[in-house]
């Protein structure tokens, strides 16, 4: 009931902002307020279900062929709704402050309208239990986010990003359509609960369905090489929308994938291998491309690809456990992956909000143009630092906990099973370790170059701390990262019902396995608390040692050079250069060098750029060929409305004849 009310409020709020006059100052407040209210109401049943309450169902007749308005809140949906509702509300509050600079220049009605619709669409996707309803919700989500991405549509790059996103998401949907139609033909129903109950019993069909689900949902989630839209769309969108899209919208792809696993019966071994391979390629390549980027939001977008890869690794371990009937692997793999969904929503949402604050104050997101912002924006800097440590998978924060569970699953598989599982587990261990190390490189670069050192250009001189409406959501998300990190066993216990739901095992067994498998987390917390205690003690020791002694200020040591300028500092590009050079075969970084010539060189220049390799090498040639081929049909297009109506009439006629022949 609360859920329906929440969705009604979202819809009403979305329509209401369109009715307000464009200069109304309350427009943002109304738009954000309705989202916050809806999220608050919606979270009541979500918490109830996760704490052990019964699943909630609603059926309404719906005059769409094969469609029924059938929604259900089960633990799996509830788990994904937690970050969705939380981040939607926080990003909406942030949006009030963030959009203020557009006030008066442009009507903010549409953006709040589509923001409300996007949240509504995501909620419906997670709740829908009928394939037709699911697809409608999926489209609502895609279209609403398309209009949000193209908010600044006067810029050509934004329009292009919007189109890439639009095409990618619909190609993905085409695979989902095929997936659902095949399932419906096999089971004779469009309802998810029938699919889950009957299951698929022919191995060949199940394999086809698995591939369709991975491609269809993987496009939304951003599996490499289906990720091409992410690094275009996330930077183009306003920052609070990027936070929402990267934090939770792409997770609907993960949700869809996990949901489809419950339809497909016992998986064969190779499904697990596929997901581990996808996870490794997305994870390693995602973080490498992120390292090579110069634009902060593009960097963060590639990091979403990396984190989706980590989630896929967790799901892969879970699938390996399912196919060999090892409950420990199911629980640790799915548990770690699903926990990472929540964690990534927190720290990636926070990072995009931080990036928005930086862009809002300085007018640029070029990392090499920034510097020294910590002194000007202390709150943004601290929250960004917390998120950077968390996303690097380091203790004592939340990123470490979910990666710990996935690692634990892989190590358990690695030490106790035969080659077919041990070898992929070893690849996972090595890959995840590499990903972690590269993420540290990437986020020390992002944080260090943007917030520390001296300002590198005049962009930063005007910057000051952002308004409270923007600061508060960042603080809440940072607190979330710390709290999950330090209360990991409790949070993992909250996964119990979700895992029962996903693994379809006996509840007692899942409970016991989860309790036994996650018991090391208690020691992790002890270690983390000891660490924090030691930090506090050492701060006091240091203060005691320095008390009463001379503490002076001076210039940074430059080997005796006394006239340093800010341009002499190391840049983000130079920081990442050793790694991007080493991995050049995978990255395809292009370098343009104007070398210094002569004894007194007048000018020299170096420019590097790393375009997306799969976009350049795979999709661009593919779409160019398709365009060349399809342009032969251009004679059909006259721009004449009457002719188009004739086409429609003729098609209908043909269909009718075919039907009644």
């Amino acid at each position: 009931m609360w859920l329906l009310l929440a969705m009604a409020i979202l819809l009403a709020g979305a329509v209401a902002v369109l009715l307000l006059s464009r200069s109304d100052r309350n427009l943002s407040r109304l738009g954000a307020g309705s989202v916050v209210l809806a999220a608050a109401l919606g979270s009541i049943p979500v918490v109830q279900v996760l704490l052990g309450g019964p699943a909630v169902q609603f059926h309404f007749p719906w005059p769409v062929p094969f469609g029924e308005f059938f929604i259900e809140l089960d633990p799996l949906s509830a788990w994904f709704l937690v970050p969705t509702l939380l981040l939607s509300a926080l990003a909406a509050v942030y949006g009030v402050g963030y959009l203020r600079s557009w006030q008066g220049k442009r009507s903010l009605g549409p953006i709040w309208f589509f923001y409300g619709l996007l949240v509504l669409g995501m909620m419906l996707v997670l709740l829908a239990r009928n394939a037709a309803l699911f697809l409608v919700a999926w489209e609502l989500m895609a279209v609403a986010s398309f209009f949000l991405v193209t908010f600044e549509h006067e810029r050509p790059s934004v329009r292009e990003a919007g189109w890439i996103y639009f095409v990618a998401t619909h190609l993905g949907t085409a695979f989902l359509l095929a997936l659902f139609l095949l399932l419906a033909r096999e089971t004779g129903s469009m309802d998810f609960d029938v699919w889950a109950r009957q299951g698929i019993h022919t191995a060949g069909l199940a394999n086809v369905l698995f591939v369709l689900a991975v491609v269809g949902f993987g496009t939304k989630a951003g599996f490499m090489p289906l990720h091409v839209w992410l690094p275009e769309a996330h930077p183009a969108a306003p920052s609070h929308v990027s936070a929402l899209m990267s934090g939770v919208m792409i997770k609907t792809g993960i949700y869809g994938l996990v949901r489809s696993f419950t339809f497909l019966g016992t998986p064969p071994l190779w499904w697990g291998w596929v997901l581990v391979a996808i996870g490794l390629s997305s994870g390693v390549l995602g973080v490498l491309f992120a390292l090579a980027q110069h634009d902060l939001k593009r960097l963060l977008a590639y990091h979403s690809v990396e984190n989706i890869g980590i989630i896929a690794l967790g799901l892969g371990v879970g699938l390996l456990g399912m196919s060999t009937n090892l409950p420990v692997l199911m629980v640790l793999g799915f548990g770690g992956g699903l926990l990472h969904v929540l964690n990534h929503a927190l720290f990636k949402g926070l990072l995009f909000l931080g990036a928005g604050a930086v862009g809002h104050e300085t007018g640029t997101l070029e990392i090499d143009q920034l510097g020294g912002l910590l002194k000007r924006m202390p709150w943004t800097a601290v929250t960004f630092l917390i998120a950077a440590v968390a996303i690097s998978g380091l203790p004592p924060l939340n990123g470490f906990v979910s990666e710990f569970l996935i690692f634990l699953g892989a190590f358990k598989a690695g030490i106790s099973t035969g080659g077919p599982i041990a070898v992929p587990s070893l690849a996972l261990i090595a890959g995840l370790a590499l990903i972690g190390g590269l993420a540290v490189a990437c986020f020390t670069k992002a944080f260090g170059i943007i917030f520390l050192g001296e300002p590198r250009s005049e962009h930063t001189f005007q910057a000051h701390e952002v308004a409270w409406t923007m600061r508060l959501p960042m603080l809440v998300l940072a607190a979330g990262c710390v709290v999950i990190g330090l209360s990991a066993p409790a949070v993992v216990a909250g996964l119990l019902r979700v895992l029962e739901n996903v693994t379809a095992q006996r509840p007692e067994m899942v409970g016991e396995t989860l309790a036994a498998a996650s018991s090391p987390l208690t020691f992790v917390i002890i270690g983390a608390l000891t660490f924090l205690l030691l930090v506090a003690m050492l701060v006091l020791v240091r203060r005691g040692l320095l008390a009463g002694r001379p503490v002076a200020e001076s210039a940074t040591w430059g080997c005796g050079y006394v006239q340093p300028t800010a341009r002499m500092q190391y840049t983000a590009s130079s920081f990442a250069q050793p790694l991007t050079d080493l991995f050049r075969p995978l990255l395809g970084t292009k370098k343009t060098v104007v070398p210094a010539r002569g004894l007194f060189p007048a000018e020299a220049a170096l420019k590097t750029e790393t375009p997306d390799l799969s976009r350049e090498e795979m999709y661009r040639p593919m779409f160019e060929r398709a365009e060349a081929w399809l342009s032969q049909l251009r004679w059909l297009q006259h721009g004449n409305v009457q002719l188009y109506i004739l086409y429609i009439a003729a098609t209908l006629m043909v269909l009718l004849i075919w039907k009644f022949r």
Partner: protein
Amino acid sequence: MITAPLIPLLLSLVLSPLLPGVINRTKAFFAGRQGQPLLQTYFDLWKLLQKGAVYSRTTTWVFRAGPVVGLAATLSAALLMPLGSFSALIGFPLDFLLFAGLLGVARFFMVVAALDTGSSFEGMGASREVFFSALAEPALLVALATVARLAGNLSLSAMFGSVSGAHWLHSGPVLALVVIALMIVLLAENARIPVDDPNTHLELTMIHEVMVLDHGGPDFAFIVYSAVLKLWLFAALMVGMVLPDTGNLWLNVGLAVGGMLAVAVVVGVIESIMARLRFLIVPQLLVGAGALAAVAFLLGLA
């Protein structure tokens, strides 16, 4: 297995500054010099702790937090490391992942502290630090996965407790490969030759040393102490794989300390007979270490 849980921690806290002294004495022996006193690092620490500090005007609290967080993380990591036949204070499945994670936190804060100075030298060191450690991380975890598979256990104390002479007889090549891989990781993580030269005097060629150019006084004492403690902990990783449990407490302590000093001597010998590798070759060495560890794991499968 004797459980005297405080022994590894106390030994590491007290004796770790001895290791650089042993390394330097070994190098001096090879060079035909007398070398600095064995206890030089203790003297250095004592002197640094007496001093005041000078901070760059560019820096913020991040620069001051670097050494504190670094030492706190390394000390917490010391709680997790067993020594020879002595169990660690805290042991649980996958404790070595927390160990690696805590050292990662220390590295993260040392790197951002270096970037906080705005010095291009320190930026250079920071860049190399994250570069090499990213490549060393997979080698470390794969090597430990191999040992874990042999021992059938995921906790460092239990792993080292159950790796015995029988394992060395039965799967000697596997363990030997693991020891080599861990040795390379030790050299890379602790800024030793052939990856980094602790004695170099040119800022352009340093890694670890250049990151801490601007630190002084108690801050630098924290950094020096974290560095020797980290060296001790990595040496303990290797010693734990080799040492048997004799059943006698004092004999075990003697063996453990002797083993640690032996690792220091080996590091000293490597530093004396090898030149430092070019930066471009180092990744090959680290990837090679990872490959050796992976080969060991696959051999262990058979």
